[in-house]
């Protein structure tokens, strides 16, 4: 995050206005809004099937009125991504040292998140989305760490961004307990990657479109 974005985030916190949730725009402002929406729609189409695109384009515009089941399904897709990514990495990456211990932990945590989200969606009378096909192209430990860092940080931003739109307190509590673990993963991966584990005092919330933009390249 640039210093300007940081101060924008802090400003948003100190002076909470309705725009706070979208205060940090990761796109850097150089991409036209329609372009981002289109990309988001395409990615969402890939994730949910074309019929499911409409609600997310709408929420990218309105950023509210999304049901808890929609939010949980959105989160579930991200957890599928992470879970499959770590599952594959356990075969693919020749981990050593601390990473060797970390990898099974990450895989197990994400798998449990998938199961918890599916269960919650069903409990609410919803239907869990199917797992999309992913395409993880990276080589070596450094390639793995780079993707992992993106995934975990995107996960944190996604949950933080969706949190205020969650209607049920139980669902919010569940999402909170998951995002805390995503943040812990993010810090651990950053340490492995030689990056700052907590680069900013505030984790910026991400909108659906920002999340989709970040994960789009990983969806086959």
């Amino acid at each position, binding site marked *: 995050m640039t210093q300007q974005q940081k101060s924008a985030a802090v400003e948003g916190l100190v002076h909470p206005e309705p725009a706070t949730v979208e205060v940090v725009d990761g796109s850097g402002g150089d991409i036209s809004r329609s372009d981002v929406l289109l990309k988001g729609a395409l990615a969402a189409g890939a994730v949910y099937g074309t019929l499911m695109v409409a609600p997310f384009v709408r929420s990218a515009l309105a950023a509210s009125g999304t049901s808890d089941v929609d939010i949980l399904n959105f989160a579930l897709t991200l957890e599928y991504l992470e879970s499959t990514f770590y599952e594959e990495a356990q075969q693919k990456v020749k981990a050593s040292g601390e990473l060797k211990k970390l990898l099974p932990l990450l895989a197990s945590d994400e798998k449990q998140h998938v199961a918890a989200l599916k269960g919650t969606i069903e409990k609410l009378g919803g239907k869990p989305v199917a797992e999309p096909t992913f395409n993880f192209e990276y080589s070596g430990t450094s390639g793995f760490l780079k993707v992992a860092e993106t995934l975990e940080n995107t996960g944190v931003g996604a949950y933080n961004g969706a949190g205020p739109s969650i209607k049920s307190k139980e669902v919010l509590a569940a999402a909170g307990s998951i995002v805390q673990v995503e943040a812990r993963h993010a810090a651990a991966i950053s340490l492995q990657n030689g990056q700052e584990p907590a680069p900013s005092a*505030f984790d910026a919330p991400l909108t659906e479109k920002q999340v989709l933009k970040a994960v789009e390249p990983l969806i086959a």
Partner: protein
Amino acid sequence: MDPVSRRKFIAVGGGTSMAAFLAACGGGDDSTTMMKSTTEPEPMGNGKESETAQFGKGDIGILNYALTLEYLETAFYEEVVKSGLFKGEELAVLKKFGAEEKQHVEALSGTVKKLGGKPAPMPKAEFPLNGAKSVAELAGTVENLGAAAYLGQAGNIESPEVLAAALSIHSVEARHAATLNTLLGLSITPDGAFGKPADVKTVLESVEPFIVG
């Protein structure tokens, strides 16, 4: 546990509560009314007084509770950095975390004011600094507790904007906790795949020994 410091600490909170309550009543800040979201039926609601009532009403109480914890964290890191117990990369990490806690203090007290409340006073704190290992352990404990404290309040926050702010701080506390746990050779996720919340009573009892006046 020292009953005197406990009483003092509760008294500090109590005073804040009254001040914040009066400020909220007299202030008439339109943001307060604006942020009252349409109240959903609360499945967990039991009509009892909120856990953070001693720190103020509603979101102001929650923010002041968080502010009190952030003050303690800030003071802790300041003492740790000055102690000379750490050097190099470790010192840099602790300095950075301390600076981030200070930003949390500023954001939280600013938000309390914005809501028409009075920010909780800075508690006077003392921390045992007996060697690098025990200090690092204490830092880990404090950060894990901080993350759990925020998680414990998420469902009680009324305003979506305050919730967004709290969430953006919560995950940073979690990052700090995981970093310190890594330095200590402990699990980054001591609660497993799901972070566990802590209630106000548990949190305040844990920090009480460090409050001196």
